[in-house]
């Protein structure tokens, strides 16, 4: 039994951390937050050059052919610097969809370009308000042409293609949903940038009007595949959330040591100390749950659905908890545009919704424990 990453994996993580410390300072995040670019293209290509994007993509498709454990640690570093990048859309989702359900030709076409950063992928599932369910999906493919509206779609403006969940064929309920690859630069696609709570990420409304759509996986199998891939992505995103939680805890700690009030550092007051201790507890529990998720993801365990929901619920809670209390510890200064606290506060709340809200994952966790894997978590 060994619940830790190897020395080689930690060395890779340290390398990525050094790279990001230099290339992704808060100023780089703010450039995307305040500017027109949907993401930091130069940073993205630099990360690709480092091998970080293709770390878990097999070598035959242009990746490094390492495991998802390495990708988990890279995700943690991306979260730590609130990287303004489409890694989740392109790598945790699009690449995983291709690996799980793509044909040989689809994998050969897209995976090398995802690994090199040349292409960006997106996942277009959501249509409007509320928890996603098969019946909410109205986008439809007939005779290879997609029509409908997907919103919000993370990285929909920057993406070269999207994996789209749409109705097709005679199936009902979950079986009515199929997946398609749609090239977004082609005919029949309109993209609009959305205003969101976190402009350091980019979200779009995609309107399809007879856009050419190529099936991904079997007809009627879309909901199942999407669930499987979202579980995998949830573990990776949990590591991003963990990195963010860790960073906001340290930001708050450092400020509490330096800020003086009533003649002493505010970090010597128990009200502040106990707040920070509770943040540490959240982050530590999340780290342990994330490691469980990483193990399940890399080992292909049957516990993966429970582990994914466990890591996800725990990491969402930890990042939201640490990011909001980080502002509290900073006091009024924490609510200024100039301080970086709001970058993390925004991101913690955006990530809490991506891939499904907290209440959705809480419900999934209990449902999955009920269907037979209680021992896994208990």
């Amino acid at each position, binding site marked *: *039994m060994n619940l830790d990453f190897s020395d080689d994996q930690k060395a890779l993580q340290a390398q990525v951390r050094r790279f990001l410390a230099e290339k992704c300072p808060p100023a780089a995040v703010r450039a995307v937050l305040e500017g027109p670019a949907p993401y930091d293209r130069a940073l993205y290509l630099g990360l690709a050059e480092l091998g970080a994007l293709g770390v878990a993509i097999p070598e035959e498709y242009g990746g490094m052919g390492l495991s998802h454990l390495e990708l988990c640690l890279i995700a943690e570093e991306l979260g730590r610097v609130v990287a303004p990048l489409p890694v989740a859309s392109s790598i945790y989702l699009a690449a995983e969809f291709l690996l799980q359900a793509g044909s040989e030709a689809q994998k050969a076409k897209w995976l090398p370009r995802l690994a090199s950063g040349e292409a960006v992928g997106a996942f277009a599932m959501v249509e409007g308000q509320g928890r996603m369910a098969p019946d909410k999906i109205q986008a439809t493919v007939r005779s290879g042409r997609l029509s409908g509206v997907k919103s919000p779609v993370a990285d929909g403006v920057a993406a070269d293609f999207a994996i789209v969940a749409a109705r097709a064929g005679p199936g009902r309920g979950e079986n009515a949903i199929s997946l398609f690859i749609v090239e977004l630069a082609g005919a029949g696609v309109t993209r609009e940038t959305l205003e969101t709570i976190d402009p350091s990420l980019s979200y779009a409304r995609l309107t399809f009007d007879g856009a050419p759509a190529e099936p991904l996986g079997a007809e009627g199998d879309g909901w199942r595949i999407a669930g499987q891939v979202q579980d995998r992505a949830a573990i990776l995103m949990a590591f991003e959330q963990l990195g963010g939680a860790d960073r906001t805890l340290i930001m708050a700690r450092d400020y*509490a*040591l330096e800020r003086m009030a009533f003649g*002493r550092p505010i970090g010597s007051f128990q009200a502040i*100390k*106990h707040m920070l201790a509770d943040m*540490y507890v959240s982050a530590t529990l999340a780290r342990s749950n994330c*490691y469980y998720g990483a193990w399940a993801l890399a080992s292909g365990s049957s516990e993966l659905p429970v582990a994914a929901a*466990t890591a996800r619920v725990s990491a969402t809670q930890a990042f939201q908890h640490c990011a909001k209390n980080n502002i509290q510890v900073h006091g009024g200064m924490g609510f200024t545009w100039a301080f970086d606290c709001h970058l993390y506060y925004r991101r913690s709340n955006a990530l809490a919704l991506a891939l499904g809200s907290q209440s959705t994952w809480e419900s999934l966790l209990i449902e999955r424990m009920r269907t037979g894997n209680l021992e896994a*978590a208990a």
Partner: protein
Amino acid sequence: MDFEDTPEEGAFRAKARAWIDANAPKHLEAELKRAGFASSGVESEDPMDAAKAWQKKKAQAGWACLHWPKAYGGGAYSPIERVIWGQEEGVYAALSGPFIIGHGMCGPTVMAWAKEAQKQRLLPPLAAGEEIWCQLFSEPAGGSDLAGLRTRAAPAADGAGDWIINGSKVWTSGAQHSQWGLLIARTDADVPKHKGLTMFFLRMDSPGVEVRPIKQANGQSGFNEVFFTDVRIPDAQRLGAVGQGWEVSLTTLMNERLSIGSGMSTGFPELFRFCLEAQIDGRPAVDDAAVRSRLAQFAVKQSGLKYTGMRAITALSKGETPGPENSIGKLVAGATMQELAMFALDLQGQAGVVQDADSPMNARFQAMLLRSPATRIEGGSDEILRNIIAERVLGLPGDIRVDKTVAFKDIPSGARAKA
């Protein structure tokens, strides 16, 4: 990153399983499985006799105190082997309750500070469950502020070099069953409070020691008051130097937090089972969205503790020492258990008030509700644990201590403490 046994771990597991299978008191298995909250559940025989018999059997076969050296009655096994043993021992581990304080806290302190001959005399019977130890630390005037304790140890007037103890301790678990006690007392009131303490061990049947059970807020009596009236302790039973008691006590307290915190139950598996059975509007409670949300939050605390423990064991097995970060175990488990018990009673509706044989799951949630306030206090209160995390893990400054440089005798004390 691997949860599977290595071949060596697998071989150890097989060996442990075979021995347990051949030797465990199987006639008690049904009772142990039915156990309510915080008791072994043994009723068909004296529970202390049953506990001692199982401990003795384990000791004779080298399965007691797995992490202790063999010379002191242990098994000299690795941290991971200890965990594997725990998994295999299963329900029979509930029989170890009377030995937790001795094995987890007093034993390691004796091992770190006593003379070799004393260790050879004291530790093997402690490991074998033949002698039980209690920890005489907290006092009416010294709980979280342990160093404010008032029990006095003064040199005997006859010049024999012995110490004479006067004062009282509270919250002493298992004192009524103990042969030995680990005692911290004040030897000098003229220096600041942390500097005037000294650690001793003593026979609990020494003349002048009186144990009185305390009736606790939950109606049970697991804790005691212990009174000392002119109790004589030979100087040879001192641990560490005169005035070094605070330092010695830190060995005990860190082990206390580790041994209490690791593997502590939050009650989640039981709550989950209950939510499968309980009904809301004719449907299982677990189908209700609000119930799921609460359950999920409890679930990730439970699993977070479990995997934090596994990370600590991984670190141990790589030769790293467990640090103050392990304080989170009890901090999370205690508060979670209390909230979880309140939630379970809420699901029982107005009938949740009833605590009798008809209450769901042997009334364990009612018992948990009434016991959990103590879990949040014993072995370091929630607030002390948060201070430890803030100061020793996160590196924040200590609180300003108005009594730090003042001679103990000059520190103001409240009227209640004096009484």
